[in-house]
């Protein structure tokens, strides 16, 4: 899936344009990145750097939306530790250092009727995908309890929600929502926690559907050199000729058959 040309990654100090808490601990930040906004494909991510020098490594955060004309893009992230907590404190006018766009992103050429399935903090990268796909789109979003971004998907297709506590939509997971609503499609694009992706992979196999999954793992370099963020791959990988694809560079989006979860 690697088709990136060289000299496309940019590291820069971006100005924070806005910051908003969408749900408990889930934040949305628009940042001014100039020309980088026009280089982004849905499913790509940024390395975001903390200002605290005791935290060396950038945090990989998916790009939720991009606005090439406005030279800005949006990240939606969950506060998971001290680094993301620092980001959540930034206000308009602050600066944040980012590098990107990184990774390969989702393929956009299929016209097949699609499921876009997001779970939790895997939902944000699907928004730009929903905007750019031209096929029939059904959007299935899974949450533990509190919803976020569900309304933002409405312009691109019918939105179905599942919550673990049953407080909204289908009680259960995203596949429960698919079944309860008798939904059908030929292709799946998904991002979310591994158990969800594992279930979706099995579902796609059973239904003989094309399926793309976006994965995450702890990263150091973000550009394919350190070999920290590998996942088990069915095929021999192009880098080390073993069965370890690099999520940051060969992914984060993989064909479901390409990876073992």
């Amino acid at each position, binding site marked *: 899936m690697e088709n990136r040309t060289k000299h496309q990654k940019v590291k820069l100090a971006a100005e924070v344009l806005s910051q908003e808490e969408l749900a408990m601990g889930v934040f949305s930040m628009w940042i001014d990145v100039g020309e980088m906004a026009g280089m982004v494909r849905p499913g790509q991510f940024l390395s975001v750097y903390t200002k605290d020098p005791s935290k060396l490594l950038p945090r990989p955060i998916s790009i939720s939306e991009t606005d090439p004309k406005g030279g800005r893009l949006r990240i939606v992230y969950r506060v998971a530790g001290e680094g993301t907590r620092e980001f959540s404190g930034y206000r308009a006018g602050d600066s944040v250092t980012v590098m990107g766009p990184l990774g390969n992103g989702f393929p956009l050429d299929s016209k097949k009727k699609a499921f876009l399935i997001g779970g939790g903090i895997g939902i944000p990268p699907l928004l730009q995908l929903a905007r750019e796909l031209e096929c029939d789109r059904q959007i299935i979003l899974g949450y533990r309890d509190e919803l976020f971004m569900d309304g933002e998907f409405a312009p691109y297709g019918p939105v179905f929600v599942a919550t673990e506590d049953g407080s909204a939509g289908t009680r259960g997971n995203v596949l429960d929502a698919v079944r309860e609503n008798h939904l059908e499609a030929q292709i799946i694009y998904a991002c979310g926690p591994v158990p969800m992706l594992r279930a979706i992979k099995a579902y796609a196999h059973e239904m003989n559907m094309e399926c793309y999954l976006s994965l995450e793992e702890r990263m*150091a370099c973000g550009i394919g050199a350190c070999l920290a963020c590998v996942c088990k791959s069915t095929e021999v990988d192009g880098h080390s000729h073993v069965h370890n694809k690099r999520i940051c560079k060969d992914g984060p989006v993989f064909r479901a058959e390409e990876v073992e979860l």
Partner: protein
Amino acid sequence: MNTRVNLAGVELKNPVMTASGTFGSGEEYSEFVDLGSLGAVVTKGVANVPWPGNPTPRIAEVYGGMLNAIGLQNPGIDVFVKRDIPFLRQYDTRIIVNVCGKTIEDYLEVVERLSDEPVDLLEINISCPNVKEGGIAFGQDPRAVEAITREVKRHARQPVIMKLSPNVTDITVMAKAAEAGGADVLSLINTLTGMKIDISRQRFALANKTGGLSGPAVKPVAVRMVYQTANAVKLPIIGMGGIATAEDALEFIMAGAAAVSVGTANFYNPRATVEIVEGIEAYMENHGVEDINTLIGCVR
């Protein structure tokens, strides 16, 4: 102004190189750095056959540093010779190949495969803390250090760098053993063995339980070990351990390192190596230093 330094007869245009395992074979970083501006590129460790490495999570961040337990994932010498060496030959830089193995025979097989390749120096990794066999098992016993050094030297066409572990009581004992075995150059330090526990999950942060600590947190330990080693052996030393700036690099040089490697800093600043080259030149300019060699070991 002269920034050239010499390692066992191999001249480097400047003393700044990459630390093995943090820079791949340069391809990923060539988007950010002109590899031709570096003294040398030190490749990730390569074995006789492909190694899959350790399970994930392979890294964890810690205060001022990181732990890694990649486990020397590498494509093996066949792919390396076909793909990585021709890539590096495009650049006007020295090529140093880091060699790893589980047994002495593994190391020798790689060393022999490289004997006719356009490689400038070999770095023998006897200090990886993250693999069960080979690696550090060879680097913590002076007799093993001397024996493997002697065997490698017998088979190597290129000058040999022995990469030493800091996970020993007295690093100068290992340095002297490598010198006795015929090493041409020493490099130090590899990572310090560490551990992190994820208290929310009550589990080890790394699948391998332990990992190698690197980054600015280890720098004072590394400077001390370079200083001690420089005073214990006659061999040139490549110093590394937490170098992120030219000031860091100069500390190692003044402690006795003839060259320096930049490692973990590449992960968070892809241009760290070139910025350090420029920073060293600026320091020499500002302090009227004509020849970098006059700084090597100048603090006694």
